């Protein structure tokens, strides 16, 4: 299936993948530092295992460390 992660198209095997698996697949080193949006809705950290990402879903990984014009 095809999904979008942070605006980039990504091909993923199978018909669905959990947020937790998607974080691993994208080598997010510390999931505790990221906030996840699925199709614009924030996903609670406790639901990363249960929440499934499906074909054409858009996922955003948001961090608080970057940012700003310097």
């Amino acid at each position, binding site marked *: 299936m095809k999904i979008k992660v*942070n*605006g980039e198209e990504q091909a993923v095997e199978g018909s669905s993948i959990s947020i937790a698996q998607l974080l691993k697949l994208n080598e*997010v*080193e*510390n999931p*505790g*530092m*990221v*906030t996840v*949006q699925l199709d614009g809705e*924030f996903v609670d950290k406790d639901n990363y295992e249960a929440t499934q990402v499906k074909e054409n879903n858009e996922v*955003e*990984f*948001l*961090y*608080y*460390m*970057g*940012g*700003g*014009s*310097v």
Partner: protein
Amino acid sequence: MKGFTTKSIHIERFKPDVHGALRMPVYDSVAFEHASSKDIQLAFEGKKPSHSYSRISNPTVEEFEQKIRVLSDAFAVLAVSSGMAAISNTILTLAGANTNIVTSKHLFGNTFSLFEHTLKPWGLETRYVSMSNPDEVANAIDENTRAVFLENITNPQMEVADIAKISKITKEKKVPLIIDGTVTTPYLFKSKDFGVNIELISSTKYISGGATSVGGLIIDNGNFDWKNSPKLAEMARKRGPGALMSILKQEVYRNMGACHSAHNAYLQTLGLETMGMRIDRSCENTLGLANYLSQHAKVVGVNYPGLTDSPYHEVAKKQFGGKYGGILTMDLESKDACYCFMDELKLIKRATNINDNKTMIIHPNSTIYCEYSEEEKLGMGIRPTMLRVAVGIEDLEDLLNDFEQGLDKL
């Protein structure tokens, strides 16, 4: 891992070190390179966890923040340049002109100065209430209230408010509750369990590990819906639970230049590992000293929540797990007696700090609060006969001997 100290030592590294260093190195570098133009764009948008510029984030500082986050079971942590930077950045993020904050009549002198002298001219109203009277807190909150702020053991008045009662009010009124938890740290006080939304800490104190460095922490417990905070509502729609941290990182903290230094973050990460033992020792010493002083004929009064006759003993016991912090105040007959006693001390330092390894003594009325009138000082509970003792981790017998010989001279 269950124990606080075990966790503080063994929390897994957040990013592997290329050389396998067991201790996070000090990244004394201002700028960080990105692999591509796209990568630097994603980093600036907050969609890629990489560092760009050390005023915004730094690997050594990040390691410190993440350790605190795990130890306090928080949503996110921002390390800043001092405890006062933690307070000022948080208030500037939440409040502004024509709004108000509700706080205690009993405040650290510099915090009072921040509210009255620095922020008041910019249009922020501060409402002072008794935090020991929850009805006063409830009555002071209105539609323009942006936060309720208090210290969990006030310095130096030693007042301990019932935080669960206050958080019940702030939750009903949908106003964030901010606690200055410097003197307890997450080792003694689990702020999230008491409904606190933001905990602020001066990491200069217990965390630094012996007054090695200055720093502060803003801890977001992740239990407040930022859509209910007018200045953060728009960001909450974009960033959800990360709204507070996003505004700090992308605006207030960034623009105020309140960054923590990598070197101080290194020292404070090291200090964190021994903090539990040091807090245990200083709390034991303080209780021992309080018991001794309360029996001494030349001491007019002792104020310490660990004493069973303290009006705050029961609430402190409930909130801080049977430990009561490392600060007490004692009253002598007069200001002259206070000065005479201080000058006779041989071991204890005449200095201003708290939660150092060394025991220190100060006369708050003539120092920390010297810029205020006697009337203002009395309103804040700062009597001319009062001394503040910040107790360290020395052997108690040596501390008692120094107090004994000093009191003998009066």
